[in-house]
């Protein structure tokens, strides 16, 4: 594609030419992924197809590198939205505080019978927060209470830390909140290994005038006492 790349001079500044040519060095960037070729083949079959939704699907599949990469982009987009909404005055609107103080984080919900509370975290604004699970658990329940006009995205991973490399298996859940403090609970089983990390971030809509506050509670199955050998 760039047969004469090194000989072409487009500006009077050779350093700028060299820098731009280095940036656009073709060999460093990949061609279209196979998924895109698959998509191309499907387009004529389903011309109503509108591409992969970022926020329209509540659950993303487990373990696929492409999905993990998608979630990384979700995070980028979320970061962008946060940049605007966090900076706006949030003293008006349903559920907003008249003083502009952060919304109080809801209390952690009670675990249902057969489940035990393990950890919780929450946020009254747009911070991305999370926790590692100690010990890791192959089966957990995500119990969320969120109060406000926006959505909360919860990410669950089978390795620790908040870093999201492309190959990381991860699940994501997007929950809609309401001004009264909506409660949602989802039970999950790791396809292999154990869940080690849960994180969450609020997804404010650009029109949102108040912070959404939420608490994410992680529950694990209660340990059933082993039958007593003496009885």
């Amino acid at each position, binding site marked *: 594609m760039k047969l004469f790349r090194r000989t072409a001079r487009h500006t009077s500044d050779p350093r700028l030419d060299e820098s731009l040519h280095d940036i656009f060095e073709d060999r460093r960037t990949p061609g279209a992924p196979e998924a895109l070729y698959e998509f191309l083949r499907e387009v004529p079959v389903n011309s109503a197809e509108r591409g992969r939704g970022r926020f329209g699907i509540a659950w993303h599949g487990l373990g696929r590198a492409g999905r993990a990469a998608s979630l*990384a982009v979700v995070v980028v987009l979320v970061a962008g939205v946060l940049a605007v909404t966090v900076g706006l005055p949030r003293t008006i609107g349903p559920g907003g505080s008249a003083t502009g103080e952060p919304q109080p984080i809801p209390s952690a919900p009670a675990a249902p019978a057969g489940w035990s509370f393990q950890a919780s975290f929450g946020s009254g604004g747009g911070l991305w927060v999370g926790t590692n699970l100690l010990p890791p658990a192959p089966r957990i329940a995500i119990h969320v209470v969120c109060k406000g006009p926006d959505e909360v995205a919860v990410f669950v991973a089978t390795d620790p830390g908040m870093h999201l490399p492309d190959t990381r298996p991860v699940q994501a859940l997007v929950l809609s909140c309401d001004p009264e403090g909506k409660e949602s609970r989802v039970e999950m089983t790791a396809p292999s290994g154990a869940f080690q990390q849960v994180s969450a971030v609020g997804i404010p809509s650009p029109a949102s005038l108040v912070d959404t506050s939420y608490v994410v509670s992680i529950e694990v199955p209660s340990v059933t006492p082993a039958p007593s050998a003496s009885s």
Partner: protein
Amino acid sequence: MSLATEVQVAEGAIGPAAEGESSALSAEFVRLAARHLDGAFKLAGYLLGDSGEAEDAVQEALIRAWRAWPRMRDPDSVGPWLDRIVANVCKTRIGARRRVRSIALNDELGVVAADPFRAALARDAVGRALERLSPEQRVVVVLRYWRDMPLEQIATRLELPLGTVKSRLHYALRLLGREIDR
């Protein structure tokens, strides 16, 4: 010409796809689009600086292209035509991103540090300064330096007057040149 108008021009020249396309039409679309898919993806990657978003942009472009396909008359111009749609989709995405994005949480968290397009653009100050160009300027720079296209060809591909292309490149390089001098 506004961004929205450019999009309409790029697609309106060919028209909407009708239902009940023949399998031959489908096969021809897939065959010709596949030939240009790598280039379309890289163009989107360099414009958006993110392979995931580039994939989405190309998907969107393919859907637009398919809908306009029945009126496509010249198979030799599929590449430039697809490039034009991809560029317009990317410009719209960049514009939307600029309205909401001013911090880089991803950098703090290292989320997409491995992205090849982001890495390419983050190589030096000039690459990072590309993000400060307008979408229109960025398209011209990418076509000029990645594709090594002559200005006349860029003008044809983007359906812009040659003077507009020259002007956009001039101001883009002036901004990028300042980064070299820093």
